[in-house]
């Protein structure tokens, strides 16, 4: 666990220059809508969630080799490496490739077909909504698994709220079918090329995409022995 710098004797640490704006800036220490009579003194606390910083070479292990293979294979299909992959991140020892959505299919094809990569299995799509990350609010996380080489890596694709389209991968990985439907159902990401993008968990005529951050939890007040407790997203709660 990282301990924050404490004590008055330690000089203030300068924030390193981030290449990307933060994913989220939290104001106040309590999560519910402001103005709740917070007298704790933590109401003016500002914390940021930084976007993961790109990793520096050498990445370690087999990661360098894998990225090298992608660098050599992608131009053969007419895609420059830097145009396809915007950053390579190492988070807690795992490799995350941030792929631009226009070239997702080429990258996925390379990951699947190239014999040195051979990521035969795609474990699904997981959506993520960062409402303050303007221009790329919706993130989609694709974990890949290679049975031949016993390796894992993750691809992250970002798309803006205003244009929530990501190419579908179901012809490369048919098992992604329901995952894309689920991500559409919960986040509103439209997967182009998916011929059957219907809701999977909510009723067909449901309005809204429930797991977005601007969608309420939707609970009701709990009344018990005279006390009324609002649902979880409306309570004052620590962030």
């Amino acid at each position: 666990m990282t301990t924050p710098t404490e004590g008055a004797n330690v000089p203030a640490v300068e924030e390193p220059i981030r290449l990307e704006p933060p994913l989220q800036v939290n104001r106040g220490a309590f999560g519910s809508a402001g103005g709740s009579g917070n007298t704790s003194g933590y109401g003016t606390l500002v914390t940021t969630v930084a976007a993961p910083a790109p990793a520096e070479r050498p990445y370690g292990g087999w990661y360098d080799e894998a990225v090298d293979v992608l660098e050599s294979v992608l131009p053969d299909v007419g895609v420059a490496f830097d145009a396809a992959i915007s950053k390579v991140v190492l988070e807690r020892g795992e490799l995350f490739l941030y792929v631009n959505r226009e070239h997702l299919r080429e990258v996925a094809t390379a990951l699947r077909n190239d014999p040195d990569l051979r990521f035969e299995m795609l474990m699904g799509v997981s959506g993520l909504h960062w409402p303050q990350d303007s221009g790329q609010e919706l993130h989609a996380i694709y974990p890949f698994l290679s049975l031949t080489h016993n390796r894992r890596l993750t691809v992250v694709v970002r798309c803006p709220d205003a244009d929530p389209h990501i190419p579908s991968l179901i012809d490369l990985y048919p098992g992604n079918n329901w995952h894309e439907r689920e991500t559409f159902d919960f986040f509103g990401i439209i997967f182009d090329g998916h011929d059957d993008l219907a809701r999977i968990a909510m009723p067909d005529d449901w309005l809204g995409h429930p797991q977005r951050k601007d969608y309420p939890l939707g609970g009701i007040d709990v009344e018990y022995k005279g006390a009324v407790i609002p649902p979880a997203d409306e309570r004052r709660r620590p962030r």
Partner: protein
Amino acid sequence: MGIEEKLPSGVLLTSVEKLAGYVRKNSLWPATFGLACCAIEMMASGGARYDLARFGMEVFRASPRQADLMIVAGRVSQKMAPVLRQIYDQMPNPKWVIAMGVCASSGGMFNNYAIVQGVDHVVPVDMYLPGCPPRPEMLIDAILGIHEKIQDTKLGKQRERQMISQEAVALEAPTLRQQLGLRTVLDLRAGEAPAVELPVVESQVVPR
């Protein structure tokens, strides 16, 4: 219902009612409506250790047309609620409903957009059974409670009178708040005078 139409009203029916109640309660056939974790405990109740067959209930009828007890075991989602209602409607009278588990009784721990907060929004419930999941013994206790209810059910005109009187009692009954003598800020704001001068604790209402 065959027997009840043939009975002339006003005739003393006590022994017939007792017999009908006895027969009905001892061969209740549950409709399979197992949804989630509670369904597994329901199946375990039907298993060898907590044997539901001793109550005549090991036959879980798949077809609701042949069932008289619907044990709603598990959380009812928004998509499932119309199905639940349809199955209930397909069951012939007399029928009873047990809401098994907290999710069926009140929405349980899932106070959110996806779960119906209590199946009594969808079907009328005769017995609420809390637990997450309730042990098989608790389910059997609920079933025995339903058995008592069935045993005491009257027939024909008496049944109508019983239902009217039960409803009147329920409408007159004090709410839980009144029973416990609690008063909150909300009640006082509504102009209701406190029955007993209890100190009003503002913090009883959790701020938004």
